[in-house]
């Protein structure tokens, strides 16, 4: 599973870690993140992410 990076703040979404603080289980691929998921660091949407 691919990591994705936030174009704005540089946060890296690592599917192996997920985003447990925001209810995203480890092992969740970027594609499977809900549409309303936002960057936990700066708050922009999925569309601001590119493959790392």
């Amino acid at each position, binding site marked *: 599973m691919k990591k994705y990076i936030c174009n704005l703040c540089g946060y890296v979404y690592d599917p192996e870690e997920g985003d447990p603080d925001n209810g995203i289980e480890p092992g969740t691929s970027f594609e499977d993140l809900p549409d309303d998921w936002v960057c936990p660091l*700066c708050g922009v949407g999925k569309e601001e992410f590119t493959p790392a």
Partner: protein
Amino acid sequence: MPTAFKAIQICEDVYWVGAIDWTLRDFHGYSTSRGSTYNAFLIMADKVTLIDTVKAPFKHEMMSRIASVIDPSKIDYIVSHHTEMDHSGSLPEVVDEVKPEKLFASRAGAVAMKQHFHRDLEPVAVADGEDIALGQMKLTFFDTKMLHWPESIVSYLHERKVLFSQDIFGLHLASSERFDDELPEDILYFEAAKYYANIVMPYSPLVKKLLKKVEGLGVEFDMIAPDHGPIWRTNPTRIIKWYHKWAEMKPENKAVIIYDTMWKSCRKMAASIADGLAQEGVSAKVLEIGSTNRSEVATELLECGAIIVGSPTINNNIFPSVADVLTYAKGLKPRNLVGAVFATYGWSGEAVNHLEAVLEEMKVEKVAESVNIQYVPDDAALEKCRELGLCVARSLKEKLQVE
């Protein structure tokens, strides 16, 4: 308790109790030629509240200003909007001295405090939209993540219609005057633009989101009180309008030429390029890095439409000073620019390729053939440079017409 420094009342029940840094000239590489202020505010509500603190060496000045209004030990609440040390450097000592009932910060702010001070100041975390009652007054917090740190928040004092906006809407300017209407507009515009370019520009998409959210809330401002520079009192929406404009990053009829030079070849080339731009009616700003701080380059990039970069080749690479400025400029993420490259060399000509690669990384649309000259440009070479200027100017003008 010393009271040599006095508080300045900004409206009923609210005082400025910050510090003026008259001699600051270098703020982590940002040239602050007019100094700065670290603003802190005291709200004389039932719950006496201190909004932000100051850089550590200025603690005495702030405490003195507070003491001119009230015994600092009477402070009930302290709010920390932003953990950067120009606003929190004195926080641990102030907490020890004042022993407030509560210290408020965002959740990320609470973590950042520990990572700065390596002790637990026991902050209470506040969420986006959360209110705290100061007795007869109410303070509401708003999340401003990455404007310009992850833990940044702002707050709004309902009864006085004051927005405490931390670094947002701030500028570096040391002055006796505390209000925008006491200072010349051209200086305010320049310093606010410089601040935006150097601190806020990379997060412009978040600025747009924030401004939209604020408009949606329908909140009225009598004052916007940032953590640096004057308080926006007369027509406080003026700075909001400027932020709207800057966040759009629309191209303007100006080209910025950034270069450095070893034996004045690049200097001559830059002058010819500027002539070509002017011939087509595009304003040129020629910035030789040897005499221009990187933060001044950033300011020029905020309101322009083209970037033209030049460098000598040294040891198969670009000049270190050019790499410095371009690394900085790239991080600030200016957008919607067209551009071109010029370079010189002695026996190998790598600088031109390096510069082209940097422009590509910066998402600049290259609109002219690069000019790469051996040793010293002759008239024919300078003519090529003029053509480069003409070419960039025509592309920029076309782009401006379409927009």
